């Protein structure tokens, strides 16, 4: 996918002015304002009746220049920015950045802080998959599930809010630990606030509800004959193609590759918990939906285990008052709800990074669209696009 190629611009300008209808093929502009493009993705599709035979994604309508902005900010300020990359799971964006900075500064966050991070990351994953479930059903034409999904997600968002004070953009991680929680805890001047009162009880209830909800979706959406017809054997992505295009996350796992950075790297203490990595067999739209829905249950199980076995201790490691990162470079990657997210941090010893490169999951995942949409039908185009579950903030940054 080469969007800077001038030839592409030519075809785009053709598309936007042509009002007359050709008899053989038609250039259809899908987006940037379209109900199913998850924001402002634009697809320039050549269609012959209902058949799509050439699709060109056009990116950049949502470019906010976070990589450049990060160069003129200090490290603690950058967490606010990276929160907004994938806004559906804001919390998980902070983790790899903080982990990278800590690695460069050679600070180890306390056990308890790490576990809180882990719990909230999994909650963010659950939220993201809830949104996917609702939105995907909407895209194949079922109007009801999104209301159930949003209602169930609210419980989890409330928990995130009770700890961090924010629903979508928590801005909760600090270098060397986490922010003292915003909720009401037993506070004295010396005792900084920890997790809010009743957090364990509420989480337990909410996670049981999540498992219930995932089961509900398996019946409500997955048990629907029409949904099967719309998604099975549609948009089949082979293992080899997926790997060649750098696709990651649930999409890669749906194609049958058992790849999960949670078990492969150590950015958070996942090795303490037992969980399964759901994988699919066919790599079609149904598998991609199924993998995400099963992942919700696994995430809920991780959270349940984590609150049962909570280490005590401080929330913050000893960190200098003015955070200066020694010169060096590092790349930390993490398993985000949408796939692999990585931060390449280059430090020259100042208050802020010299260069910050963000590798986002959705960007690589969207790159597979032209391959997958070749020869698809127009309704399949929407089904396939929805099954990739991208967020435009995550694509354009």
């Amino acid at each position, binding site marked *: 996918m080469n969007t800077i190629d001038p030839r592409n611009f030519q075809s785009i300008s053709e598309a936007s002015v042509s*009002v007359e*209808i050709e008899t053989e093929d*038609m250039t*259809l*502009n899908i987006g940037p304002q*379209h*109900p*199913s493009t998850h924001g402002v993705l634009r697809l320039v599709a050549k269609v012959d009746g*209902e058949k799509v035979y050439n699709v060109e994604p056009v990116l950049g309508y949502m470019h906010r220049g976070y990589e450049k902005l990060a160069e003129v900010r200090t490290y603690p300020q950058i967490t606010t920015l990276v929160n907004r990359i994938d806004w559906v799971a804001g919390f998980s964006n902070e983790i790899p950045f903080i982990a990278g900075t800590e690695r460069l500064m050679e600070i180890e966050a306390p056990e308890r802080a790490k576990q809180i991070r882990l719990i909230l990351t999994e909650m963010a994953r659950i939220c993201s998959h809830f949104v996917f479930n609702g939105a995907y*059903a*909407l*895209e*194949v*034409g*079922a*109007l*009801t599930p999104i*209301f*159930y999904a949003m*209602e169930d997600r609210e419980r989890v968002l409330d928990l995130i809010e009770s700890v961090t004070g924010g629903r979508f953009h928590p801005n909760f991680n600090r270098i060397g630990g986490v922010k003292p929680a915003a909720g009401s805890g037993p506070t004295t001047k010396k005792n900084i606030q920890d997790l809010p009162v009743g957090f364990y009880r509420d989480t337990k209830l909410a996670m049981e509800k999540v498992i219930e909800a995932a089961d509900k979706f398996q019946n409500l959406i997955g048990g*629907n004959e*029409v*949904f099967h*017809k*719309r998604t099975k054997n549609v948009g089949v992505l082979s293992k080899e193609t997926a790997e060649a295009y750098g696709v990651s996350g649930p999409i890669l796992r749906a194609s049958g590759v058992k790849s999960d950075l949670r078990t492969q790297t150590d950015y958070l203490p996942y090795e303490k918990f037992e969980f399964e990595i759901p994988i699919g067999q066919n790599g079609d739209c149904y598998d991609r939906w199924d993998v995400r829905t099963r992942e919700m249950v696994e995430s809920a199980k991780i959270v349940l285990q984590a609150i049962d076995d909570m280490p005590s201790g401080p929330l913050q490691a000893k960190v200098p008052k003015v955070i200066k990162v020694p010169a060096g470079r590092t790349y930390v990657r993490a398993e985000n709800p949408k796939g692999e997210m990585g931060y390449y941090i280059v430090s020259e010893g100042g208050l802020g990074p010299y260069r910050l490169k963000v590798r986002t999951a959705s960007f690589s995942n969207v790159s597979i669209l032209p391959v997958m949409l070749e020869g698809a*039908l*127009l*309704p*399949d*185009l*929407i089904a396939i696009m929805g099954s990739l579950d991208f967020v435009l903030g995550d694509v354009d940054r």
Partner: protein
Amino acid sequence: MTDVLIKVGFVALAALNGAVIFTIMDVKGASWMQRRPGPLHVGLRGFIFPLAEILKFVQKEDIIPTDVDRPVFKWAPAYVVVSAVSLFAVVPLSPTLVVVDLELGVFFALAISSLSTIGVLTAGWSSANKYSLMGGLRAAGQLIAYELPLILAVVGVVIQAETMSLVGIVEKQIEWGVPFAFSGQIVAFLIFMIAATAEMMRVPFDMPIGESELTMGFMTEYSGIRFLIFYISEYMSMFVLCAVASTLFLGGYHLPFIPTEWVNIYGPISLITKTLILGFILVAVRWSFPRFREDQLQNLAWKFLIPASLLNILITAVLKVVL
């Protein structure tokens, strides 16, 4: 002359009221199934919701884009609404309470219901919008494909009833003692309901509108009062087709165990109750199914519904001759 005017007024009012009742049922059904508080609790338990909806559309600007084919664009909603309203003329509320009891009532109903195709197709074509065009073409293909099973399903009923007049069909059902849906025409009834859902372009057959694919299909460029006409006529045709279905298959105005002298009183109530029950099934289907793909929809019509309805005609005809 006044006679005709009264009849026209009655048809228009009945169809409009039916549409409003079905709109209320649809939004309330949706909010009940989706646990939305809006149309369930706000404003007289949600009953003035459709009024707000209508007022909203009326006071909006009627935008006509520059490139559209103006007269065609402006007239397109009229075809749809005329088709829905005039269908109501032949539906009997009782043996005497009927606008016109045509000898060829069934034929008229089916012919007039396919008039809406013209409106939808012209709306899609004249909008100068690719999404509208695709929606219009999809609608045309779909309406042609589903017109056939609709007609063929009714042929079974006509054979059994030996008449094409809608009053005659109901009288025949009274004679049989059991509505046709439960005395030999159950397959035809199911085919009729499926095909009628496709005719109304409701989920799971709403590809012509398909808001996640074609934004709003053939209605994309419409706004204000013209959009409202499309919107209302969808519910009108839903109401009328359900009324036709309950007349053809569920005994229409007839109620058992009640003396037939009172038919002018209980007839309308009986018919409307049956219509509402059928409508409720459509509402429940709408809010629980995803939509089919265009090719799957065509396959369903040509490969399953049409052969099944032909088979139904054959069996009905054979049984008619034998019995």
